[in-house]
């Protein structure tokens, strides 16, 4: 429900007209307080639509996908006006705007698990983006304020708080981690009505691989801004963004004590090195309707440019060293198919980054070239995600292969990685509100070191099998949420996988890991998406 400001004085006719408009609006949006006209583009490809920010426990972890977008509509459909008032011609400019709404959304998962041996259930993955069957608890709380100022001119404020464990009820301490993820304002309908702009802190992402909690193509967490232009048919858009971030690491930031100024006693903290990374991205996306009224083909081109200025760093007390500037470039693409029915889709991702762009936007390199830059670092990734449902069955798959090389002169080092994973999770839907999923996965990782015990290159391998019975009150479907679920998983790890853990760690000794957990996952109204 939207009302004019309290200090606006209206006569009875005006109030009546306002009531009529409210009724019309209520018909259009379904219920009071609904969001203003949704100008989102055509349906997304399955549950992994663009700009559905999700929380991350680590910069490389991907979170839950968004819900499928509703079919967008640009114009407010005209509905019938109650007979008591008769048809009313309303001047929107005076009476409909501004309109506002507030919404709350959340993504969350809670899990508690045992390893079957008296210990806590732990993630056994060795690859960077492993199966999420044994993931930890995490939640996002999202608040949104939507305002429509004029026809096709709107703004949205999005705030997302991320909450990481541990949970108070688990360790009895008030030590949960909190982070501000989204904190931005977006304006839509600037000038040409296809133009939008935003500024703030934003989880700026595209489509994910749900089973791996991973965004393989575009996933930038920066504080900055961007613009986007959508074509009139909403099938295509181009988006540009620029942002900064600065990891709290001597690679970018160093604070040291110096004598206080003006000969005062004590010390002052001085940022000897302070060099935020500037990241700019460009995205071209096109959806071509195919395969029926709701299906289509999606193609995305993505590019990033990273830049880090030079600086100076304290190497040892009294000794400063130059830190050269760095840069990097990344290009990638995505091709996807979706039917628009039962969240059926498939996406293929390709991505190649060089230099600074070979690292995640919040990652800091460990090894550098002799010139102390990351020029020469490379990362190439191929990813796959897909879902097919033909009730009462469904299967969701995901996987990737990644190769990463540091720019160090020493060709063989532990950070040089070739790795991959493939996961498949078939579902059997038991009626409309329950189901059973099984998961099978294989992951392997080779690092640029020898296992000195075997004298062979380290080649860690895992096989995993899982069983997930669940209750799904919202209906049958792979991506229907919320769910209550039990998780049983068994992971077999080879010698090299065990060699990755320190002495005395159980994971260094056990060949088979068990995971017995119960938990829940939900998402609703998690974030604005579309533009």
């Amino acid at each position: 429900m939207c009302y004019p400001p309290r200090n606006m004085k209206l006569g009875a006719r005006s109030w009546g007209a306002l009531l009529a408009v409210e009724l019309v609006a209520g018909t259009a949006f379904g219920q009071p307080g609904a969001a203003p006209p949704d100008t989102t583009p055509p349906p997304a490809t399955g549950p992994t639509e663009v700009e559905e920010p999700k929380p991350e426990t680590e910069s490389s972890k991907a979170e839950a996908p968004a819900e499928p977008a509703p079919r967008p509509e640009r114009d407010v459909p005209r509905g019938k006006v109650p007979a008591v008032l008769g048809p009313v011609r309303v001047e929107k400019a005076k009476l409909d705007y501004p309109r506002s709404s507030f919404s709350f959304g959340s993504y969350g998962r809670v899990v508690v698990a045992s390893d079957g041996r008296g210990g806590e259930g732990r993630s056994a993955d060795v690859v960077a983006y492993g199966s999420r069957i044994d993931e930890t608890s995490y939640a996002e709380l999202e608040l949104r304020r939507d305002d429509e100022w004029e026809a096709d001119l709107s703004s949205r404020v999005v705030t997302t708080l991320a909450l990481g464990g541990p949970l108070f009820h688990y360790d009895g301490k008030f030590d949960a981690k909190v982070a501000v993820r989204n904190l931005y304002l977006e304006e839509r309908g600037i000038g040409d009505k296809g133009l939008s702009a935003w500024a703030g802190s934003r989880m700026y992402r595209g489509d994910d691989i749900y089973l791996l909690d991973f965004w393989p193509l575009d996933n930038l967490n920066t504080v900055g801004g961007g613009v986007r232009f959508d074509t009139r048919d909403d099938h295509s858009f181009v988006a540009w963004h620029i942002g900064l971030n600065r990891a709290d690491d001597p690679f970018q930031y160093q604070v040291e004590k110096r004598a206080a100024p003006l000969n005062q006693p004590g010390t002052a903290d001085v940022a000897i090195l302070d060099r935020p990374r500037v990241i700019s991205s460009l995205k071209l996306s096109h959806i071509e309707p195919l395969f029926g009224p709701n299906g289509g083909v999606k193609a995305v081109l993505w590019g990033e440019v990273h830049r880090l200025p030079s600086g100076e760093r304290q190497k040892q007390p009294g000794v400063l060293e130059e830190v050269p500037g760095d840069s990097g470039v990344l290009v990638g693409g995505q091709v996807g198919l979706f039917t628009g029915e039962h969240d059926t889709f498939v996406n293929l991702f390709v991505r190649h980054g060089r230099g600074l762009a070979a690292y995640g936007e919040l990652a800091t390199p460990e090894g550098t070239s002799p010139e102390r830059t990351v020029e020469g670092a490379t990362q190439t990734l191929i990813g796959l995600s897909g879902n097919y449902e033909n009730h009462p069955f469904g299967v969701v798959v995901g996987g990737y292969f990644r190769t990463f090389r540091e720019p160090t002169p020493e060709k063989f080092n532990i950070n040089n990685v070739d790795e991959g994973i493939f996961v498949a999770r078939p579902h059997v839907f038991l009626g409309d509100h329950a189901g059973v999923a099984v998961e099978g996965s294989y992951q392997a990782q080779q690092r640029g070191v020898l296992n000195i015990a075997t004298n062979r290159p380290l080649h860690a391998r895992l096989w995993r099998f899982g069983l997930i019975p669940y209750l799904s009150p919202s209906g049958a479907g792979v991506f229907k949420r919320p769910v209550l679920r039990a998780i049983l998983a068994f992971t077999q790890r080879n010698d090299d996988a065990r060699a990755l853990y320190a002495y005395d760690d159980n994971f260094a000794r056990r060949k088979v890991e068990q995971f017995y957990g119960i938990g829940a996952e939900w998402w609703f109204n998690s974030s604005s998406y579309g533009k």
Partner: protein
Amino acid sequence: MKHGKTSLAFLLAFASAGCMDFEGLDGERPMSTHVQDWRNEIVYQVMTDRFANGDYANDYRVVENAPARYHGGDYRGIEENISYLDDLGVTALWISPIVKNVETDAGVDGYHGYWTQDFTQLNPHFGDLLSLRRMVDKAHERGMKVILDIVVNHVGQVFYYDINLNGQPDERVAGTGPLVAPTRPDGSATSPVSHVNEYDPDYDPRGVQAWTSLGEAGPAPVVFVFDPESNHLPPEPAIFQQPKAYNRKGRVWDWNVPEQVRLGDFPGGLKDLNTEDPEVRQALIDVFVRWVELTDLDGFRIDTLKHVEHEFWKTFAPAVRQRLAAKGKTNFFMFGESFDGDDKLVGSFTFGDEVDSVFYFPQYYTVIRDVFQQNGATKKIEDLWNQRLGQNGNYGTVPQPGGIGIPPNKALVNFLDNHDVGRFLFFKNDPAALNNALLFLLTEDGIPCLYYGTEQGFAGGNDPSNREDLWRSGFNQKHPQYEWVRRLARIRRSYPALTHGDLKVTWASDRTGSESDAGIFAFERTGGDAGNAYALVVLNTNSSHESSTEFSGAGMTVQAGNGASLVNVLDPNETVTVGGDGKLSVSVPASSGKLFVRSADLIPGL
């Protein structure tokens, strides 16, 4: 939708998950013999941490401006600068111990490698197994050998003696005895107070004892430390986590007592291994043979040789030779450090199945220090050499069975300085004297060993000042010392008399003043395995005036042959002719030397 091919490619990639080419550095290493004759070799001592930093990724805890901390040198750095060493003319690299050390203790890092904590793992500061293998391979490709420094006498500061039985390592301060003088100003007596550091207590022949104010309480328990941050951890392999693997008698405080020297802990809390225990012996054989098997190294430089009993060497050396020979590696050179001027003691380890050779420490004291640095009488050189050259000398005259095939007395490892003594130029800041000493080093018999940095004129004092970063020199191949060493190395390798010839002193002098022959020392290299090849070295060790090979009418007799024409290799414009009586008179300017060969044998351009 093209599921089929895409999915298959994925699966294949995932299954293999490996695109790295390990360039043959993985898997078993075939071993082979890379040396023909160790007398042809010129050893170069590399302090790995201080030679060259080739990989910044292993530079954790590096503090470059602190001499006793890690500086970042690694195997990659050696590999990248192998051409520097090849051009210098050295042929065998003696590298620091490779095993994992106690990281740091009392503010000093284990950068030198002599504080073993884990015999089975590499020191990650220097690189991993791939990096080490590649460095060894690169050396072998250039005909160079790699010698591993090993320590069997002790490990790092891995446990303390709980003397006061309070369960923590501390320094106990206690009054220790009867009242003694001097008295206080008021006339009352004082009582001495002792500080007993539980990591490093004094030697006790009974073993370190626990005691309280009420008296002794029996042997002090040995408590292994567990601090992963500083890598003070129980040693590996597991035998070294048992107290019986150690002698547990405390630190040597009287180096004149043989028992202390053999059984005592090394100063700094370095725990002495019980090398008489069969399990300890076997473990040491196994770990060090394994390293050779993993890397195809060519020899061992053995630290603290004299601190381990002869019986151990009689077990260790043959076992190593046998196991390596069975896998294709023969001519494996084992030489030890007996840091002592006692010629008989040093030489005692070169008999009966023990080591192939030792560092010629007596020569270091008697010759390098006394003569070349302090202008002592050159007669000392002759007297010292006479103790090894005869059949009843202090050094073995029979090659070790399965060893390098050279009698120890002809394979001594000669040096001017090393990591344990101040550099030559620190004690005598005279480059001419250094050059003269280098001429001596590279022309006498035995195997020369050059300490890194000598070729760059480094002049550091005692440890750690003598462990400078070589990379700060810029690896200057135009440095006068570099060019001099390069020249001498080429000369040595080119004239078989210098590598294989027997040695005979032709002139030595008691005189060190203004006498005509003061400071002269001359010797011939001929015969033996060099056949008829001939070289004559004449050195003037005094730094004040020219001297010659004559005194009071007596001249020098040489074996070159009456009337033979000799040319100075170092200055081919100078030729001399042996008299009809076999006598030869040679004058040499102060702090310089001459090297003569038969004129017909001169190799131009060296």
